[in-house]
């Protein structure tokens, strides 16, 4: 009985704590997906540049105003282009980027299957 109580208390604590920090987590998640345009290969989350600090502040405001994650990305991509996003949007010109890994995975699977099929009859001989 005591164990059940401990488990339930832990779950409630976890849920409450995750809710307490959910906004901060969301903000950090957004920062991580934004490119610092004045830095070399850094995300907004990693940078302390003036530009990064301003973007962080704008993201905080937008989250506070109830804007959704995608709406914030769209807003910033509209101002700075898709280059500001680390995760490229699902657009026609990015199809190859999105699908190439799956295509290569699929072709690799076929290749392995063919090699396997080729080897099996040989081994039987």
């Amino acid at each position, binding site marked *: 009985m005591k164990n059940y109580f401990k488990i339930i208390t832990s779950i409630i604590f976890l849920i409450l704590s995750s809710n307490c920090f959910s906004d901060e987590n969301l903000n950090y998640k957004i920062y991580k997906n934004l490119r610092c*345009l004045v830095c070399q290969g850094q995300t907004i989350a990693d940078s302390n540049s003036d530009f990064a600090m*301003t973007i962080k502040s704008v993201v905080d405001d937008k989250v506070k105003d109830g804007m959704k994650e995608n709406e914030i990305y769209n807003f910033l991509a509209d101002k700075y282009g898709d280059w500001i996003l680390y995760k490229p949007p699902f657009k026609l010109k990015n199809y190859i980027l999105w699908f190439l890994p799956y295509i290569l995975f699929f072709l690799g699977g076929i290749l392995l299957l063919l090699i396997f099929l080729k080897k099996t009859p040989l081994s039987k001989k």
Partner: protein
Amino acid sequence: MRKFLFFLTFFGTLSIIIVFYLGLKTEKIYSTKDLIGKPISEVNLDLLNTDGSFNTSELKNNNFTLINFWASWCGPCRKEHKYLIELSKNDNIKILGVNFKDNKLKANKFLNKLGNPYFLIAKDDSGKKSIDFGVYGIPESILIDKNLVIIQKYIGPINKKDVKYIFNAIGS
């Protein structure tokens, strides 16, 4: 089977070469070319020297507007200032100055010393409003037409060549 393996290897290699080739040609620095042809947002900006604010939709009254983001602490802004003065002499274009994260006294001192090319001076103390214009550092300038559509965006100080381009673009 052999034929298939040959085609698979051939097209696999070819696709990898194409991807790398396209990757090499892709610009790895921030470019503003995607912003050209897009309208600017309607933003309310506080004025520098008077209480009151200004909405960018009012720029529809001008044939062409150059929105210039500047500050007194910005070295390259000094460098481009003479070109802004040159542009301000043309009646077909108005220059809106957005004083960026600056001190009012110092900003006015800067203009008293180097001249005032702006028809209106707004301010952005926090730098947040400039995000609405896609600004990431100063000086930056955005040339827009009567419909608030971006014709050209300049990152860094404008120069003689840019002034020539602007005069051509506005038909002067």
